[in-house]
């Protein structure tokens, strides 16, 4: 007899995960007010999905979570995934099935060569020009070999060193090989310097994926709370990108250096009502964000960044905690 899960998918864990025993992906996304959730799987052509799956709320929804199970054989060549979501069009909602939405739980986000921030700000389709999630047909840890990695724990000898992965080695004077400048791998080359200086904790300015075109190089406008920023990796595939980040953490640990992340959970890079619709806005606008009662400024903006994540929503709180646990456990 076929299992319920293999027919309907499971609402947990959220995100796209791999059910190895079935050779299938499980997709689960919170979208409380949505009336139609359509999963889109893509190969290299990001305008034409290789598979379009319209979730049936009668069997692909549990509580506020939409979910489905897609065998890999049903979507040959699939490398990327995204959603198209419809629902009430009036405020405070912002449903627009024309917009291609990435999964807030995506572990790697791909910005295609035709990526266009403006297309996500205008009415109409942004297919082929939207950031999308990458699929991984494998476990969360990508079978990364952590070896005998251990977290150093410093006490009286704690000296924190705050750095930006890009700015630290981007300059030619860094002495880092050109193809590694401004990357996770470039920072690895500087570990002997950190040891010579004597610092024992490295605090990385935000490494969560942000929009490479929004001009905020520091990274304080995050989009992907589960995705390391791709421009600081050389690879474009999820596991290879993650391996570059994990190798950095592993090498710092091996040198006796703790790693601390500067994390940003109070707002996202979607900005205010003039900003792009990439994900959260089109999934559950007033669920993810704190809304005001001012028509000309619908988003509460407590930090001058355009919007404010609504952590009073238990699903947003869950996302924040899931993200923290993910970085601490899977990325160490």
């Amino acid at each position, binding site marked *: 007899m076929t299992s319920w899960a293999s027919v309907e998918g499971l609402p947990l864990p959220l995100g796209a995960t791999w059910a190895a025993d079935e050779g299938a992906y499980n997709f689960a996304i919170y979208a409380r007010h949505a009336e139609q959730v359509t999963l889109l799987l893509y190969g290299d052509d990001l305008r034409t999905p290789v598979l379009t799956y319209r979730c049936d709320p009668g069997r692909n929804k549990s509580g506020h979570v939409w979910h489905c199970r897609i065998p890999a054989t049903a979507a040959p060549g699939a490398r990327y995934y995204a959603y198209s979501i419809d629902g009430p069009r009036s405020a405070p909602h912002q449903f627009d099935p024309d917009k291609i939405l990435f999964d807030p739980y995506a572990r790697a986000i791909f910005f295609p060569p035709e990526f266009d921030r403006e297309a996500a700000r205008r009415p109409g389709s942004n297919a082929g020009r939207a950031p999308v999630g990458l699929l991984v047909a494998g476990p969360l840890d990508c079978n990364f070999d952590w070896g005998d990695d251990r977290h150093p724990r410093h*006490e009286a000898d704690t000296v*924190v060193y*705050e750095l930006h992965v890009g700015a630290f080695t981007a300059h030619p*004077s860094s002495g880092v090989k050109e193809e590694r400048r401004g990357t996770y791998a470039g920072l690895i080359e500087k570990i002997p310097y950190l040891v010579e200086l004597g610092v024992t904790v490295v605090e990385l300015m935000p490494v969560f994926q942000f929009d490479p075109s929004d001009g905020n190089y520091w990274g304080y406008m995050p989009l992907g709370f589960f995705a390391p920023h791709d421009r600081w990796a050389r690879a474009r595939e999820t596991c290879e990108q993650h391996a570059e980040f994990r190798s950095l953490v592993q090498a710092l640990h091996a040198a006796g250096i703790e790693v601390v992340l500067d994390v940003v959970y109070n707002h996202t890079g979607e900005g205010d009502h003039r900003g792009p619709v990439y994900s959260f806005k089109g999934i559950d606008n007033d669920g993810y964000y704190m809304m005001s009662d001012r028509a000309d400024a619908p988003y509460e903006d407590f930090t001058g960044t355009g919007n404010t994540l609504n952590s009073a929503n238990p699903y947003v709180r869950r996302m924040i905690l899931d993200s923290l646990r993910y970085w601490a456990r899977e990325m160490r």
Partner: protein
Amino acid sequence: MRGDPGMIGAMMQRLYGSSDLFPDDVVNAYHAYQSVNYVTSHDGFTLWDLLTYETKRNTANGHDNSDGPADISWNSGFEGEDGAPPDVIALRKRQAKNLLCLLFLANGTPMLRAGDEFLQTQGGNNNPYNQDNETSWLDWNRLESHADVFRFARLMIAFRKAHPSLCRSRFWREDVRWHGTGPAVDLSDDSRSLAFSLSGASQGDDDLYVMVNAYSEPLPFTIPDGAASEWLRIVDTGCLSPDDFRESPHAVPLTSARYVVGPRSVVVLQRPRRG
């Protein structure tokens, strides 16, 4: 270190680990390490720019120079780097060492902004959040041109790590004694001097004596504790490198309990533990 009036109490509080913000009373029981000490972070001037600019130069960010914080900076007597007289450059370097020295002497968790150890500059831009260019990128050439400051930072970090008496789980409590140029601390508005002794015995560590002169003239300090010859002079930021930090085999015992601390300088003495 800018020499502002009425700052001695505030400096004591920050060196102590900020028990005003993290009270270690019975109800709260905060640890000193929960307080993060820093002179600079990514928000605001770099350490060098803090000593070089009084006016931010953020026009490249595209907001008519309206963005970025209002830093509590001092240009050391000349605005900017181009054409700065040698004595201004020397003062800036000494001030950089003073700030690094106090950062790594204070109880609590120290945080250093990358590049400050070799005087990274952003040309006065104190908010280059959108400058993916040489404004933000660390210029590693400065590691060579400011090797003296790098050496000082490296040795201060090593000194801190060698003296767990400085960085404690708890506040310094009864192990610290506050002084001025004489035995008594001077908290008056026009005071520019502070000294303290930190007993290391409870931590199995050496005793330390620190003298801070934030005044523009030299000040004679008197060490009220023990015989002068027991104390080794480790740091004197009034001296040029490498005399600014003498590693222990080269540290020289004091010959007098009176020590003249140069203008805007910090001195650290060490008395080896007995037995």
